[in-house]
């Protein structure tokens, strides 16, 4: 076997969903008979590079865009959860949601204006902000539209498209409370309008309580400066709150007494109920979990060991327990949680499982430290109906056929 054959085998295994397709396994076994192990290199590898990039063999692990928007300027794309490990999302794979494209901002020219009900309205440069004591925290960030296609029927084939509007990162920045206390906030209750420097100058009203609690002005993600599509040079981070409120390219905070009722918080990120009334200001992302492997679009190649792994999270705190069912929710088994389990962060779970070749439905459900249990889709729909669009946190079901094919189902 030559190296090109080996490459094809690897790629086919990859395309098959990385659970090792049967035909690829057979090809690999045959090839190994001719040449059991790769030959040692007899020429030098590549030289140093100023900014590392991943292996060319990983080039198919990418964000994929929605097909629901007519333009990619105001649109979103999805994190490839099925191909990721652990809990931190690589910066280049962290989902995007933009409303006026991605601006290219010179950090030296960027300014943050903080005004309104403060004793001392001030303008900050990025250098100023970095001279406040920095904090580093790990938190997930989820678009409240995550799963919006899945209310009425199973629509998207992969976990990337059903759950990929989420990422988790280590964020570094300044606590908003540090800044506001420094400027002297004149009110204890109220709202803060946060505004971006993108073409949409996008804005949301944030409760002052949240700003004074754990909100952060973040300038770094996973150890390096924010990527442009994540708000470079500065974004708001509201741990556990819906993604849309975490204003990117942040240029202004205005402290006031009332919300502004912006377009995003009235006509868009509100949850319409069957009665025709809608919920406004539903900020927290409730506890949720999903099995990422095996998941839709994959194929389990043979019977035997098939650990079930996935992610769980809650906007209200820590995940305390995740259960996995292999019989469509009739019986549940406790999964192992990978330490450290952090508040408002992705938590990896693993459930050791053997597939015996039978048709099954796999599900996971999360519990958080408030005692909340992730609901079934049927229970959630009973309350919300099918038109609320946002905040779908129901249990996800994956059907495993007797040939090992995994598909998205409602069960």
């Amino acid at each position, binding site marked *: 076997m030559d190296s090109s054959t080996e490459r094809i085998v690897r790629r086919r295994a990859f395309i098959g969903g990385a659970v090792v397709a049967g035909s690829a396994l057979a090809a690999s076994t045959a090839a190994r008979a001719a040449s059991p192990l790769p030959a040692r290199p007899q020429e030098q590898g590549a030289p140093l590079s100023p900014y590392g990039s991943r292996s060319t063999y990983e080039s198919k692990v990418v964000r994929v865009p929605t097909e629901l928007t007519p333009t990619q300027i105001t649109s979103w794309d999805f994190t490839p959860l099925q191909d990721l490990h652990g809990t931190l999302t690589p910066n280049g794979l962290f989902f995007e949601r933009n409303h006026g494209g991605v601006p290219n901002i010179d950090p030296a020219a960027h300014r943050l204006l903080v005004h309104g009900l403060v004793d001392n309205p001030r303008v900050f440069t990025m250098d*100023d902000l970095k001279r406040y004591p920095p904090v580093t925290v790990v938190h997930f960030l989820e678009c409240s539209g995550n799963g919006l296609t899945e209310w009425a029927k199973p629509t998207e084939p992969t976990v990337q498209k059903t759950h990929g509007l989420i990422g988790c990162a280590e964020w570094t920045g300044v606590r908003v409370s540090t800044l506001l206390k420094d400027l*002297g906030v004149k009110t204890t209750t109220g709202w803060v309008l946060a505004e971006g420097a993108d*073409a949409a100058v996008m804005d949301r009203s944030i409760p002052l309580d949240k700003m004074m609690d754990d909100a952060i002005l973040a300038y770094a993600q996973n150890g390096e400066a924010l990527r442009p599509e994540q708000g470079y040079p500065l974004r708001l981070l509201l741990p556990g709150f819906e993604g849309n409120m975490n204003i990117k390219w942040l240029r202004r905070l205005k402290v006031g007494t009332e919300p502004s009722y912006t377009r995003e918080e009235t006509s868009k990120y509100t949850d319409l109920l069957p009665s025709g009334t809608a919920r406004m200001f539903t900020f927290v992302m409730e506890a949720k979990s999903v099995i990422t492997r095996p998941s839709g679009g994959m194929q389990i190649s043979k019977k035997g060991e098939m650990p079930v792994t996935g992610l769980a999270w809650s906007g209200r705190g820590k995940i305390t327990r995740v259960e996995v069912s292999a019989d469509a929710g009739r019986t549940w088994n406790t999964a192992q949680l990978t330490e450290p389990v952090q508040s408002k962060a992705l938590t990896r779970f693993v459930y050791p499982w053997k597939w015996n070749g039978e048709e099954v439905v796999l599900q996971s459900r999360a519990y958080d430290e408030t005692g909340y249990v992730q609901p079934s889709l049927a229970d959630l729909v009973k309350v919300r109906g099918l038109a609320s669009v946002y905040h779908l946190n129901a249990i996800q079901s994956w059907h495993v056929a007797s040939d090992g094919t995994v598909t998205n189902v409602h069960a």
Partner: protein
Amino acid sequence: MFMHKKDVWMLAALLLCVALLPRAIGAAGTGSGLGQPATPGDISAWNDDVSPSGNLPPGSGSVAQGQQIYAMQCAACHGDKGQGGPMDKLVGGVGSLDTKAPVKTVGSYWPYATTFFDYVRRAMPFTAPGTLSNDQVYAVTAYVLYMNGIVPQNAVMNGKSLLTVRMPNHDNFLQKDPRPDAP
């Protein structure tokens, strides 16, 4: 160390300055001294968010003026009558919110008219956001409200009249999060 009398005085003055420095910074604004005081000009340059509480700019625009601007700047994406195109439908849908096929438009869903003004001014038109004058934004607002049957054909929108517009769906929002809501 030997010092001239003059040097001693200078040192004393310097020490006094250092001692007073934190107070001076505190008086200028913040404990940290970071950032610069925002001038009235800084604030007025960016403080243009419009809400039901106000902060509307000077200017005005009529339904008729808005119709012309809409045809040139908006119709290509939102339809000549607001029926939607590649982008959001702006007109219609009244009475549909409690059905199986709710249609959310400015007329059927949006709770505040000020939101429309604010959004158009900050984000529209899509190909050249931020280029409409305040008069033009008032006019387009008047026209879209008129197409939805919310204001009459002779309406003129300005900083006072816009605040008096009552949107049909205003009372149908629950501004409190009752979740968790499912077992």
